[in-house]
């Protein structure tokens, strides 16, 4: 039971990261109906930018706590801004010229963009994995049980608290952005009917660009969290994280924002429990299988609307 609760905490942390990436997939799919295959690599770029800023600012575990939190906020802002530029550029170069082309065309440029991004980072930053010393150590002991095989401590680390709290704050802000602001309104209008939205004076191209920018910024947050939580990144992390986050988006119902978050949490939990109770080697197979099973048996996901096929 204690082991279960511990895994639950770890799973929710991992799920928050996946959820943040999944939002990028789901928003883009909602608005232009394509899978932004390069989104996982945007997340990777975000993690790298965060790493570089952390090193450049000289943040270490020795920094006083208040200063550390301020500095991490600064890292977050810079990483979000620069990653957003990457997201915008990818959309501008690889997707916008193909709008209105046949349906597979943007998917193929997306794969191309993904390969290019991965290799660009590999060349510019080196292929070796980058370890980062833990910045925020320490944890809170929730309780301890002494059993016949020794004691087991259920604990939650400060880092996990930080990740979960930050995700909740971001989600709240993001929901406000989508439901209450003119930009969110424009986005939802484009989602329903792009042509009509354009006729009503919404700058569709700009709205789509902003969708990519927002998705990339959230991916950068996820990148920073991934970096702080795991402490190692390399140029290849985007592929797996991307597929898993996409699975999360599909599981929650693609196009639905709460769905993406819910799907992210579920995927995080499933992966953690799978590796905790079954086998570590096949944890990726678990994620891939869920993707296939969900798409086959309930393609509309948990919170999505069923897609009606019309002539």
């Amino acid at each position: 039971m204690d082991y279960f609760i511990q895994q639950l905490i770890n799973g929710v942390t991992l799920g928050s990261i996946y959820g943040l990436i999944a939002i990028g997939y789901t928003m883009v799919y909602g608005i232009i109906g394509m899978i932004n295959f390069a989104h996982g690599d945007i997340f990777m770029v975000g993690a790298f930018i965060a790493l570089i800023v952390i090193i450049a600012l000289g943040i270490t575990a020795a920094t006083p706590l208040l200063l550390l939190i301020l500095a991490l906020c600064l890292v977050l802002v810079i990483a979000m801004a620069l990653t957003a530029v990457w997201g915008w550029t990818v959309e501008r170069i690889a997707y916008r010229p193909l709008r209105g082309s046949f349906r597979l065309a943007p998917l193929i440029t997306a794969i191309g963009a993904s390969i290019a991004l991965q290799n660009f980072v590999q060349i510019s930053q080196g292929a070796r994995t980058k370890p980062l010393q833990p910045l925020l150590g320490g944890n809170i002991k929730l309780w301890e049980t002494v059993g016949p095989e020794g004691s087991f401590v259920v604990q939650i680390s400060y880092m996990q608290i930080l990740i979960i709290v930050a995700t909740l704050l971001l989600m709240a802000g993001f929901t406000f952005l989508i439901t209450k602001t003119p930009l969110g309104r424009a986005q939802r209008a484009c989602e329903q009917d792009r042509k009509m939205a354009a006729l009503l004076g919404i700058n569709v191209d700009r709205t789509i660009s902003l969708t990519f920018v927002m998705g990339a910024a959230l991916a950068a947050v996820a990148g920073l969290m991934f970096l702080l939580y795991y402490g190692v990144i390399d140029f290849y992390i985007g592929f797996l994280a991307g597929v898993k986050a996409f699975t999360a988006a599909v599981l929650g119902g693609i196009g639905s924002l709460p769905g993406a978050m819910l799907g992210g949490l579920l995927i995080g939990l499933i992966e953690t429990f799978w590796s905790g109770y079954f086998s570590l080697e096949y944890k990726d197979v678990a994620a891939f299988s869920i993707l296939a099973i969900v798409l086959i048996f309930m393609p509309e996901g948990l919170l999505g609307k069923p897609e009606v096929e019309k002539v």
Partner: protein
Amino acid sequence: MAAQKQDLLAGSVKDAAVGALVAFGLFAMLIGMKTDVSIGGLSIEYRWGAVAIAVAVVFVGRLALNLFVWKSEKPVTAVLGGFVPSQEAASRFGHLITPALFVLAVVLPFLLMYFLGSRGSRQYLDLAILVTTYVMLGWGLNIVVGLAGLLDLGYVAFYAVGAYSYALLAQYFGFSFWLCLPLAGILAAFWGVILGFPVLRLRGDYLAIVTLAFGEIIRVVLLNWYEFTGGPNGLSGIPRPSFFGLEFERGEGGFAHFFGLDFNSIHRIIFLYYLILVMALATNFVTMRLRKLPVGRAWEALREDEIACRSLGINTTNTKLTAFALGAMFGGFAGSFFATRQGFISPESFTFIESAVILAIVVLGGLGSQVGVVIAAVVMIGGFEFFRQFEEYRMLVFGLLMVVIMVWKPRGLISTRAPSIALDRKKAKGISADLVQEGHG
């Protein structure tokens, strides 16, 4: 006029400056500050010079594009376009290019041997074998993607199934290559049906992602099932094929001895080249014949409009499954050839990148065009090997090329394709790109 030019110049410079600013934002961190693992954690190596160069390249490139292509009254591309043969000339030329390529492929080993000798031609023959393998894979995938319009991102899984089938059958039962080749094809087709069956209800990009997932599952299983597949160490000592029972060995009973030739290791390479050439041509032949059969017509109809197909009483499940199974079968054949040529296989040869390369060959060559696949395979795989000294930049350029070619010519390089059926044979020279209506994917 002068004022207009002034405006053009000013506008272009402004645009290029914005581009340069964006480029600075992109590159400042990732190029300008390289993180290095050093004692006591990570350190940063600053490379502002490289950033300056990258930004300058973007500025000049954008300025040039603005001045001469996008905003110019006489774009350079239009002038250059005059030198490119027109659509009709190209299609007339197109009738010649196929036999020319065929003849070249058949006589290639002799040409190489004649001019370069057996020592010098070896690396070119190896390259030719590699290119032909990709041509075969491209043609196999073309059945699924080009004809049936099902985007398959996990094609490499079938390639892996074929390769591992041969390697394992040879290892456990001592079967020969010629026995394993059909078995590998059948097994791969079987897997094609198994994987294809559940995903057939999906369309377009969903299908693509699920096939990607299946491809990865197979790779992860191969990687972790140590007892059976050797895990990351792979399988080695895979037997070489024989020429109707004649081994390529020195001495009594070998190929060279039987035909009264001097023993030369190049014989086996030439044999492998012809083997893959025949296999590839068989793939092409079968595909072209199938296209004329009802099932081929159904594939193409399915690609154009699935709902119309169903309304007309075509069994879409069976149609899709045959496409999947046939494509997989040819992938399996190519896989067992790959295993026998390498003599060693490991899961590393069957990553997602491999699927992406094969898909890129099919798509960039022009969906559904058989000659396009050949040209794309020669250009891409040949280009890959040609730029071997720039090893680390190859995949970057490859990714960028995928984007650029797709944006420039969304229908692929060879965008005309032979019509499936024509009422008037004289008029049926080829369908131009604008008329080729793509289905849902």
